[in-house]
């Protein structure tokens, strides 16, 4: 099976869907001539031309709103935010218009739009460029939220997102763009809302998603070798819809839970998970649910310290040992 990067997996998904459906169009800052700020869209302009691959001005409220308007007419825009952090300047369009227009019209309208781009810390770009808004986005009924961790998932989920008839927000990670993984050449789709057990184990369930899956896998190896602990890792892949059943099945097996997330702790995705697990699997739990999140402050710039602000394998190991105590 070919081994490609996370970046290439996203690009292949875009190219395949552009090829398949003439209504798919890619818009964003520097996605065309510049080949993408993170080179995700490299080569697409050459292949599909300027009608399908469109450079926008730095004007997120304008172009995200424009994409939404076009989606109401049946265009399927895939909008790139250079950073998801810039969602704040398009907030009204994303949350009032994308999330609400179907409801307010009594179901007469749907917006088949995808908004994608990286949403992560860890690159020493300071607080303005390091937001992880998946909890904020998923708080709005009407939208779907995906955070893929591997090239295989990135491709299969993006293809499903582009074909979805609801607004889908797809959150990538700049640090994962170069990560490699096996991706089949034959076409495949991964349904939204289906979690994936990335590692099986018996002593502790780590529920996580995005780059924290990669950190957790590293931590689990060390925990097994050095602490004789068997960790199961559930990768949510999708925040909304949420595959809570796979999480509960794992909890029923291990009876202990550590949630790992690159989120600020207050009202995070993990907060919602902890509520649901205690509500629906209270009797399965042998201990309180533990959580490892980003240290609660705006993203610090200082490079060595930012590593410690975010979840990382060492922090996960420590948190896992505490969860097992």
């Amino acid at each position, binding site marked *: 099976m070919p081994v490609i990067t996370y970046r290439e997996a996203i690009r292949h998904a875009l190219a395949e869907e552009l090829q398949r459906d003439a209504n798919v*169009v890619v818009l964003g800052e520097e996605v065309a001539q510049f080949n993408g700020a993170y080179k995700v869209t490299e080569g697409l302009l050459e292949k599909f031309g300027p*009608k399908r691959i469109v450079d*926008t*001005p730095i*004007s997120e*409220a*304008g*172009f*995200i*709103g*424009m*994409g*939404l*308007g*076009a*989606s*109401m*007419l*049946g*265009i399927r825009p895939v909008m790139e935010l250079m950073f998801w952090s810039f969602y704040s300047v398009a907030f*009204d*369009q994303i949350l*009032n*218009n994308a999330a609400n*227009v*179907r*409801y*307010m*019209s*009594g*179901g*007469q*309208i*749907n917006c088949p739009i995808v908004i994608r781009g990286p949403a992560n810390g860890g690159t020493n770009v300071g607080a303005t460029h390091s937001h992880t808004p998946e909890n904020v986005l998923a708080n709005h*009924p*009407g939208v*779907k939220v995906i955070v893929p961790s591997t090239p295989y998932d990135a491709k299969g989920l993006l293809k*499903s997102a582009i*074909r*979805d*008839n*609801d607004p889908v927000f797809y959150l990538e990670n700049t640090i994962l763009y170069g990560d490699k993984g096996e991706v089949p050449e034959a076409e495949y*789709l991964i*349904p*939204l*809302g*289906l*979690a994936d057990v990335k590692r099986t184990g018996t002593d502790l369930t780590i529920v996580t998603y995005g780059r924290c899956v990669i950190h957790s896998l590293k931590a689990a190896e060390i925990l097994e070798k050095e602490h004789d602990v068997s960790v199961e890792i559930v990768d949510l892949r*999708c925040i*909304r*819809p*949420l*595959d*809570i*059943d796979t999480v509960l099945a794992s909890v029923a097996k291990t009876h202990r839970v550590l949630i790992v997330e690159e989120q600020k702790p207050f009202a995070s995705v993990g907060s*919602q998970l902890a509520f*649901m697990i205690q*509500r629906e699997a209270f009797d399965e739990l042998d201990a309180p649910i533990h959580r490892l999140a980003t240290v609660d402050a705006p993203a610090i710039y200082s490079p060595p310290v930012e590593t410690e602000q975010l979840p990382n394998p060492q922090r996960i190991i420590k948190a896992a040992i505490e969860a097992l105590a």
Partner: protein
Amino acid sequence: MSKKTSATAEKKGEPSVKDAGHGRAPVNASLSREAKIELYRQMVRIRRFEERSLRAYQAGKKIGGFLHLYIGQEAVAVGCCSLMGKDDHVITAYRDHGHAIAVGMDTKPLMAELYGKATGCSKGKGGSMHYFDPSRNFWGGHGIVGGQVPLGVGLAYGIKYKGLKGAAMTFMGDGAVNQGAVHESYNLAALWQLPVVFVIENNGYSMGTSQERSSAGDLAKRAEGYHMAWGVCDGHDLYEVRATMDKFLRAAREESKPAIVEIRTYRYRGHSVADPDNTYRTRTEIEEYRRTKDPIQVFQEKLVAEGVLDEAAVEKIDTEARTEADVSIDFSEASPFPTVEDIQKDVYWEADNPSERKSQGRLFFD
């Protein structure tokens, strides 16, 4: 108000078309008697519908939340929407009752929407500010000032992408012109030459703040900064609205040229029913406009002078409009409210179309 009609970016601020008697403009001269009566009737229907809704709000306490009345502005929506072809689209803000009726929506579901009934045009989920009818190319009905304007540019983008000869009329109030999203929209429309006509319905007041106290410079002339065509016209004269808009809509449809048109109008009621309307303007000002520039009165006089309407016809149209408004009230009163189970319908397309659902997992949470 002046009779300036239009100008273009090339002719810096100079009106390029003098008032030539708008009734004689081809777009108006070609109207049949029946079509003229129908335009008049639409304005009367909007007025009677809204007056009736206000009574239901105030006396009957049947309507919740906000109610932004269009009374005084009727010639704008009717004039503009009467020019729509099959690939033309309309989007507006929260003062949307006039546009909804002007695009042809039935007043029964419109009143029922105000009542919060399941038979409302948005099933009682949108309310006064959120009327929609995509089957009539009417895309709302939006509550956030200026928030609909990028969507209007998107409609134009969709029209152009599909290779259609249409235009997206994107309405906003004079209070919207200072929102960032509006300027971003202007830039995108001009940059990509999208077939959008931005219509600023300037009723003089952004909520309770006058234009002079909220906006620097001329509103439509800001188009020059984007090398976009622009125009200004009076909104109490339906013929003038049509004559002005026709030119810009043709340029949008045929040459994919965007434009900003400021239509000067006036609202008789407060910003919404919550506005006591006693701080920012005088009764005299309202009465003066009503006496000299009421759009229904102005058009009625023109049609009487043309021999299209007589007193009996005017009376009949008014009676029918009042009856229609009453019927819409009866319909609303008799209609059921949505159920608690309905709250979670119309949220996701996938949840509403379960046989076509591809995703898994929970879409809703307790």
